[in-house]
């Protein structure tokens, strides 16, 4: 093998190695040569549980940074996680951070919620609000106490059911009750059997209702009619409502009458006039009053009528003569 061929092979081999290293790096680290410095926030917790450096920070499931470190607060009363948030990710002032366990093998991440859109943004170095989440140990402890209570409750229930020497349990009482009333219960069951038999055969109202399709159809028709009636009533109420609305808005004669001040005043005046008139009539004042209260007018009228009557009688007798006279005077 000549020298240049050897050199070419070595060069190719080296390039292959560099390319493989680069591909591995791109695949495993997402191609970030220099880590995004981002900005830091402080999250204080009562306990960081098994949160550690390098754990992810996610907002709505999207990775937005990582835990840069953990420490005890200078006061010594709480633990703090330093969160490195990617540049460009805005975290609202009312957003809350919680420690979430993502797997049973102890992988944790910090979940930050979105906060409200109107809230301000957290500045670098600010402290984010946090919410404590119970760790697995606390949950197990609660489950244990729940188990104890459940055991007690089941024990009490068992005692109530089985009873003791002085106080027979529920089961025993039920047993006694059933034994003592065996015949009655038997009779009741027989009656019940008869009733259900009759219903099956279609006897009685209930039986017909269950077995007769015609009755069923009629019932449905009745229900339809009730529905239609309800619809009509609804329309009626709607119409009445419309009328009331119109009256309220002063439209139409009734509305005018109710809500127009001028018409109301006129009506009041008319009523007063009518009242005055009726008072006068009642007191016998005026022509109509006298006509109604003074009987002398009646007497006078009667006398006039009598006189007229007599006059007409006289006229009847002289009638034909006068008529002939009139005709003769016309002829000559």
């Amino acid at each position: 093998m000549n020298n240049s061929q050897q050199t070419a092979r070595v060069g190719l081999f080296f390039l292959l190695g560099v390319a493989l290293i680069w591909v591995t790096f791109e695949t495993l680290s997402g191609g970030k040569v220099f880590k995004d410095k981002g900005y830091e926030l402080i999250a204080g917790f009562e306990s960081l549980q098994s949160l550690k450096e390098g754990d992810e920070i996610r907002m709505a499931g999207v990775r937005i940074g990582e835990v840069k470190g953990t420490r005890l607060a200078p006061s010594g009363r709480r633990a703090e996680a330093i969160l490195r948030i990617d540049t460009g990710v805005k975290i609202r002032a009312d957003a809350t951070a919680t420690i979430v366990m993502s797997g049973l093998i102890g992988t944790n991440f910090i979940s930050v919620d979105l906060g409200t859109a109107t809230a301000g943004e957290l500045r670098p170095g600010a402290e984010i609000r946090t919410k404590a989440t119970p760790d697995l140990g606390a949950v197990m402890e609660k489950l244990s106490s729940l188990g104890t209570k459940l055991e007690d409750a089941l024990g009490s229930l068992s005692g109530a059911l089985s009873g003791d020497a002085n106080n027979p349990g529920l089961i025993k009482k039920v047993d006694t009750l059933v034994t003592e009333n065996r015949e009655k219960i038997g009779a009741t069951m027989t009656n019940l059997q008869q009733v259900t038999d009759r219903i099956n055969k279609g006897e009685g109202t209930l039986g017909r209702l269950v077995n007769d399709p015609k009755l069923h159809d009629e019932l449905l028709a009745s229900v339809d009619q009730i529905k239609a009636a309800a619809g009509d009533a609804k329309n009626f109420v709607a119409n009445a409502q419309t009328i009331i609305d119109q009256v309220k808005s002063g439209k139409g004669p009734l509305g005018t009458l109710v809500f127009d001040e001028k018409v109301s005043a006129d009506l009041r005046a008319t009523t007063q006039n009518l009242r005055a008139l009726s008072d006068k009539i009642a007191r016998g004042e005026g022509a109509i009053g006298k006509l109604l209260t003074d009987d002398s007018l009646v007497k006078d009228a009667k006398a006039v009528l009598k006189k007229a009557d007599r006059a007409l009688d006289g006229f009847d007798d002289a009638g034909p003569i006068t008529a002939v006279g009139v005709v003769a005077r016309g002829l000559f």
Partner: protein
Amino acid sequence: MKLLTDALEGLGSTLLLLARALSYTRTLPRQFGRFIEQCYLIGYTTLPIVAILSFFIGSVLALQSGFAGKDFGAKQFIGLLVGVSMSRELAPVMAAILLAGRVGSAIAAELASMKVYQEIDALVTMNIPPARILVLPRLAAVAVMMPVLTIVADLVGWFGGAIISKYTHFIAIEPESYFATMRQYMHFDSVLNGLIKAEIFGFVVVLVCCNVGLNTRGGPREIGAAVTRAVVVSLILILVLDFFVTRVLA
């Protein structure tokens, strides 16, 4: 006592050899031909055996971890286990062991022969330091080639694990799932860690083998003894250093 003296003597002469070789670093461009030749021997010709060995190491790792994890649902983490084990530990260590066996023995044999047949003495007489033309090109070549060999070992081992995970009936994990687990939980730090380790191991192996070869005394029989000694010392140093380097890098 003699053993301790020998060990200290070996350590001292190795460090001196390193210092002498590094002092000629500026002559390296003039030795480009020798550098390329050593690169070819150390890297190119070692690649097939490294690839074959890494493939089977990755496969066995997947097989064993699948066997151990199948009873408690840990099969999906095989990708992570093989990925981290190969990149952080097995690829650099196996590459270094193969380097010691294949290249280190050759270096020790060559230099021991030159020493026994007084070629080294001739070079010294001609004022050509052996550290410059025999040691420096090899050190430079191993520094360039070791990361390449290691990354190839990493990738071939990962793929070996993936293939075995797919076609073994009690594991039966698709390569997508295997590599997804690896990508989710593994970082480039692990690979970088392995590359740094491999670089250190390769450098130590070549340096030790050169030193043993150059310090051979006696006749032709000593050549074989020198090769054995060089390989044994290299292997011991690889595993001892592995512990300390891992402690430092972790």
